[in-house]
């Protein structure tokens, strides 16, 4: 089956990328995995398959210096009366780069080059999520993101990936929990709070 992309990279750096969604309000969920396919396999250095984790979703005006204004109407009313204003909006998300895949398999390491602008972004299938979350090393980079509360991101990420581990969910949670316990060394309260909120 041919996959269709959900977004396109419009900005990137070594650790993060911003992608614009094809459709308004259609961002992959907060704390979900996305992948960026290499633009072309023939272009040298065009890169590998890169994995990102969505940590921030924003919707705003397509014009840099304009903001949407309040109309005091329901979305339905607005769509009927002024459909054009929706054309002026876009949804974007920020994803943290958590790893890539080369010939030898998945690496939970930053790629040497960020995704190229205009590369397409896809959601990850359950198998891909399962494959990627077999290791939990990526979790520690999530603590370095300062723009969102890292605990929230972690909770969302783990809850989202749980479906991919439906068969051994408990085992998976223990594995992740142990990694978190290591990362949160001195902070037992924080660990127990996270675990409490992760539990399905």
């Amino acid at each position, binding site marked *: 089956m041919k996959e269709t992309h959900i977004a396109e990279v419009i900005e990137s750096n070594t650790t993060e990328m911003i992608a614009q969604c094809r459709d308004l309000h259609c961002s992959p969920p907060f704390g979900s995995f996305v992948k960026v396919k290499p633009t072309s396999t023939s272009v040298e250095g065009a890169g590998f398959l890169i994995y990102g984790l969505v940590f921030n979703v924003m919707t705003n005006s397509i014009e840099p210096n304009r903001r949407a204004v309040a109309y005091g109407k329901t979305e339905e009313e607005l769509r009927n009366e002024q459909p054009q204003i929706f054309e002026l909006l876009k949804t974007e998300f920020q994803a943290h780069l958590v790893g890539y895949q080369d010939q030898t398999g998945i690496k939970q390491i930053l790629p040497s080059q960020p995704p190229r602008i205009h590369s397409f972004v896809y959601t990850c299938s359950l198998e891909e999520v399962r494959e990627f979350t077999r290791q939990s090393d990526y979790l520690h980079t999530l603590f370095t993101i300062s723009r969102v509360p890292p605990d929230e991101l972690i909770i969302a990420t783990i809850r989202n990936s749980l479906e991919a581990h439906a068969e051994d969910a*408990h085992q998976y*949670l*223990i594995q992740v*929990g*142990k990694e*978190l*316990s*290591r990362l949160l*060394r*001195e902070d*037992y*309260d924080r*660990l*127990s709070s996270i*675990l*409490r909120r*992760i*539990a399905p």
Partner: protein
Amino acid sequence: MDHRSGELGIITRGSLLEGMEMKLNPNRSVEDIKAGKFVVIEGEKHLFFSMITDVRLEVTNPQILTHPPSRENTLLRQVLSGTSTYATVILRPMLALERVENSHLINPTPQPVKTIPTHFALVYEADEEDVSRIFGREALDRKYFNIGKPLDMDTPVCLNLDRFVERSNGIFGKTGTGKTFLTRLVLSGLIKNEKAVNIIFDTHNEYGWGAMKETGGNRQDFVKGLKQIFGNRVAIFTLDPDSSRRRKVQADHEVLIGYDQIAVEDVIPLQDELSLHPTAMEAAYSIWARYKNDWLDTLLERGEEDIQALADELRTHPESLAALYRKLRRFRAFKFLIPKTSEDIIQKIMEYIDKGIHIVLEFGKESSMLCYLLVANIITRRIHELYVKRTEEYLATQNPANRPKQLVITIEEAHKFLNPRASKQTIFGTIARELRKYYVSLLVVDQRPSGIDDEILSQIGTKIIALLDDEKDIQAVLTGVSNPTGLRSVLASLDSKQQALILGHAVPMPIVIRSRDYDEQFYKDMGFLTEKEREEKVAADIEALFG
């Protein structure tokens, strides 16, 4: 190095003095880790054979202890387990074996531990090869005798009987822990492999013929005695032929002791039992000074009416003499004591010993402590005398034919003979102290080792110790053991039956065992044949002889 399996954890810290600490692998349950277990630490240059002496729960973060995970919070528990909450196991290295670099071979002689393994050395459960490498195998040599198995293992641990008989030995443990069974095992080994001739003072009639076995329920089982297993290589001597007959025991010999065979020294150890005053003992010596071997006969004859005259004659205090008489009068009630015997029981015993026949001396109903002390003392003292004489002859002639047969004397309730006071007065104290200079050693069996003189305890070569829970007793049995800290907890955590810690001369390192089952299989291993098997064997022998 062949790859070991059964990894338990890694060494994280430790010292030569305090032992090593191992962090238990998260996939192991701490509840499977038993004190006394035999394990191997794979160091860089050595294998360290060790014993688990203690197990401890640890947390990395004290917060966890303030708010421990609730019972429902299994996820949190499981997450913490093995990382933030983990178990530390204390190991005591007992022996080191050098690993030869780049080779499958291992330098085969275990050495005392003089160093410790490196950080993060892996710890494994010991395997069968380790056990036989250290403790030997019965198939290798007759000196090895299977006494049991290490905890959770299925390979025999062997006693080195040659080393065992080089010293006096002890079997200790609370009542009901299996001392008598262990003693029967050890004696069987000595008999089967012909490492020593035994005399067993059997107060409770448990060694010769059919002893009771507790089965937990109301039912009672019997186990075979040594005579039943070893046939005519064991003789039963009895002090109470009526009792033997009633129990359908085929006694080989009735023990009769003449008053003239009892020396004052034989009465001294009874002081406590009879509450004899020292002045009474002086009186005994004064009779002896005049009447020699007839002293006791004289006292018992004249004591009733003539005591004053006897006192005058001996120039001794009539009160002390009367007191002595009143106490020793009890001897008259002993059927095995008679004024004169036609045959010297000691001569008889020596005849058996010379033929290599082991003697179980049954007390029948004469099971009072007084009787036990008296008889054991009389017989042992005189046999020891003969052994001293024979040893001197042997040393003088250096003729191997004169060399006395190693003799092991087994006594239960040993603290009665070897308490600090008695051990200085009884022949048993002497034997224990002189090691085996005269080819006689003791096998002492006792439930209250703290009652035994420290000096004697420290002379004991091999100790087989079942559960003890009195702190004093634990301390006592570990007298003379270097660095006993860890062993204390091991001792206190033994099962209440059929488990024992063995340490000392006859084993290369201390080890906890489940003692060998004393059952049908054991009888068979000792060469016992059932009626049917015997008939078949005879038939086969005849067949072989006459074709």
